[in-house]
């Protein structure tokens, strides 16, 4: 048995035993409910948390035993490990319900919340994907989003006093363009001036902070417009009439729905078009690409700017979709979490999107646990812990708890065309 699988078996076994022997006896024994819709008359599912904990604990122990006995690559083991990983979610829900004075919680809107909250993270991850696959490290996603959010809302406030659908759409477009401009700046610094790409990214973030702070205090506050009308909810035509899930999953705001389109489009363009292939080539082996006639410099500019457009959309989500206002440092490290999601997803569109949704879920779970008032004994878990949950999850993920990730080979190195 290899060292890795021994460690893995020990990990799973340890967790399983902990759950069965440590947690199970200490549960309250009350029946709790998971509901699937808003009251009244919501379809629900009553259960005893002890049963959930017991099942998950047993699953972990089984995985540990199988890992020890079977070779690592056996597909049964892999599926069971995946199942164990996924089962953490209902486990967390069951345990927190048990520790909370509330008796039920709505999981469908938890799912909806996770998806909505993951919107900027998914978009940010796509931004990073386009930039990094072409070979440019993008630490400036945060700055691109923030400047787009700030400039977009400033336009909205100045042009329409933060009211009016026409102005809103125009401002969203302005935000998107601003994202592209910030990306252009990164591209110019990294490509034309061969500035260290991480330094360039940091510079963009700092610049965005300064610029948006200035816009907020001089222009937005100056105008007396602090809050306005954000984008409106709407339901997708047929899908939103599906019972139970229709209303929750297919009803939402425009940028949120656009995000799905962006992910699909990114996958399609990157993997099914010649241009996408050239982008990937520029990131893996630019010199080889150059010999085949690919204009690496141009491709990199195009790719980074495309990423910037997507970041602009994410910025618009912050200041014009969730709410129509702008606050200092509104993005709150979302750009960096998106980068972590990209790394988690091993620089692929679906992987990155999945990672981003995971982080969005961490955020949604955090606020849900806060609402549930989870407390261990007499100690009420403070809200700050839940707020820090997405960041803790990010570190755990980035530290390779889920395997090392290999970036595009030519990333970070300035490209000098051979003459």
């Amino acid at each position, binding site marked *: 048995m290899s060292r890795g699988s021994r460690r893995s078996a020990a990990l799973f076994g340890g967790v399983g035993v902990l759950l069965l022997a440590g947690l199970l006896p200490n549960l309250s024994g009350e029946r709790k409910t998971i509901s699937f819709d808003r009251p009244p008359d919501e379809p629900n599912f009553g259960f005893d948390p002890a049963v959930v904990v017991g099942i998950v604990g047993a699953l972990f122990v089984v995985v540990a035993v199988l890992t020890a006995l079977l070779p690592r690559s056996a597909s049964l083991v892999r599926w069971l490990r995946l199942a164990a990983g996924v089962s953490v979610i209902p486990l967390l829900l069951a345990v927190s319900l048990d520790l909370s004075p509330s008796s039920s919680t709505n999981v469908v809107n938890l799912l909806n919340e996770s998806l909505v909250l993951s919107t900027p993270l998914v978009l940010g991850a796509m931004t990073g994907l386009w930039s990094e696959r072409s070979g440019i*490290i993008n*630490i400036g996603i945060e700055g691109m989003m923030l400047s787009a959010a700030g400039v977009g809302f400033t336009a909205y406030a100045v042009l329409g006093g933060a009211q009016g659908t026409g102005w809103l759409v125009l401002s969203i477009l302005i935000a998107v363009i601003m994202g592209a401009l910030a990306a252009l700046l990164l591209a*110019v*610094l990294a490509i*034309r*001036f*061969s*500035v*260290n*790409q*991480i*330094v*360039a990214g*940091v*510079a963009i973030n*700092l*610049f965005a*902070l*300064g*610029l948006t*702070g*200035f816009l*907020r*205090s*001089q*222009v937005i506050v100056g105008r007396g417009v602090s809050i306005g009308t954000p984008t409106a909810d709407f339901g997708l035509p047929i899908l939103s009439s599906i019972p139970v899930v229709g209303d929750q999953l297919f009803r939402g705001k425009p940028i949120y729905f656009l995000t799905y389109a962006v992910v699909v489009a990114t996958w399609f363009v990157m993997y099914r078009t010649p241009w996408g292939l050239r982008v990937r080539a520029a990131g893996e082996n630019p010199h080889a690409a150059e010999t085949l006639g690919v204009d690496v410099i141009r491709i990199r500019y195009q790719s980074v700017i495309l990423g910037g457009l997507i970041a602009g959309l994410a910025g618009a989500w912050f200041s014009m979709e969730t709410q129509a206002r702008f606050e200092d440092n509104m993005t709150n*490290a979302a750009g*960096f979490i998106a*980068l*972590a999601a990209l*790394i988690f997803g091993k620089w692929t569109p679906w992987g990155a999107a999945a990672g981003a949704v995971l982080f969005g879920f961490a955020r949604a779970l955090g606020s849900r646990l806060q609402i549930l008032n989870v407390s261990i004994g007499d*100690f*009420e878990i*403070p809200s*700050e*812990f839940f*707020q*820090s949950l997405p*960041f*803790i999850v*990010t*570190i755990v993920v*980035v*530290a*390779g708890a889920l395997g*090392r990730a290999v970036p595009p080979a030519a990333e*970070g*190195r*300035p490209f000098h065309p051979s003459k």
Partner: protein
Amino acid sequence: MTSDPDNLNQRIDRAGGRVRAAVLETFRLQPLLIPFYALVLAVLIGGVLIALVGVNPFEAYWALLRGMFGNGDRLAGSIARSVPFIGSALALAFAFRAGLFNIGAEGQLLVGGVLAAWVGTWAWIADVPGFFAVVLMVLAGLMGGAFWGGIPGVLRAKTGAHEVISTIMLNSIALFFIRWMVNSRNPVVLRDVASTVPRTEPVADNALLPKIVDSSPPVHFGLFLLIGASVLAAFILNRTIFGFEVATVGANADAATYAGMNVNRVIIVVMAVSGSFAGLSGASEVAGTAGFFQPGFFLAMGFDGIAIALLARVNPYAIIPAALLWGSMLNGASLMQQEADVSVDVVRIIQALVLLFVAADAIVRYVFRVKVVEDTYGSVLRGSSGA
């Protein structure tokens, strides 16, 4: 043969060029040119921005200058405000030599500061001679920062996790955790229940750093501590074997391994030491300026440190004047806001522009026709991302 006026112009140009070159040579000003011109360009653009919002830029800048150095009190205040930036800039600069990006100065100085504040309120501290009490607090700050900096170092060494992301995440985690510790009333962790604002209890009087000038904020002994820190940083980096290892790891980690250096150990130690510089800043603020720890005091201190370090081209000695400039600008900004009604964020934009221009020095070189001169540290700013 050219006509007389052209010939004369050419000769004046050449003579002027020679004088300029001579002056630069004699006073070894060449490395300063880029940051200086970057500042000039940034100030110009800032002026345009100010004019765009309807304020007279000359008025605004005059108010800024007076706010920075106008009278003795203002000057002292500027110096005092600059002191903590030295530590956070050193944090980035030190790690940069190893090719590591320590963006976590913000969190590291928070942890250092809160630990120092906690130590300062220990029951027996008041009975100990002042010198030891101060040393203990400073040590606590150093260790807090080293711990918080060491975590991303360990993660990087053992798992390859990029320190940019882990340090940024740790910044937020530190902020939340410390905010809870300082705010929490039930249970009371560090909060001073007697005060209306959320902060820790004041530290014992004998644990405070001696004040030099009683301005607002006061200039205190922390100034010497942090200047000493930059001297120490420069010494370690330039004159010790460890410093050589650090530079090698930064230039080419594989070569370092081949030469028998323990790259992982270097990474961890560098990150820890780097964090301790930031922690020193935190402790200095707690033990000197405030006497207690309040999270709001430290906003942006870490991030500005990044810009200062880059402005100083990651040279530990140059960080001192760069921090002075930065702190003075922030100090003067309040007067600019008062008198010229221009938001302090303009200063932030100027700072960001300075950073941008220093990083992309080719822009400045093109505009002001400066020749390329490689200084010891400048090469790290270009090209690939190191370790």
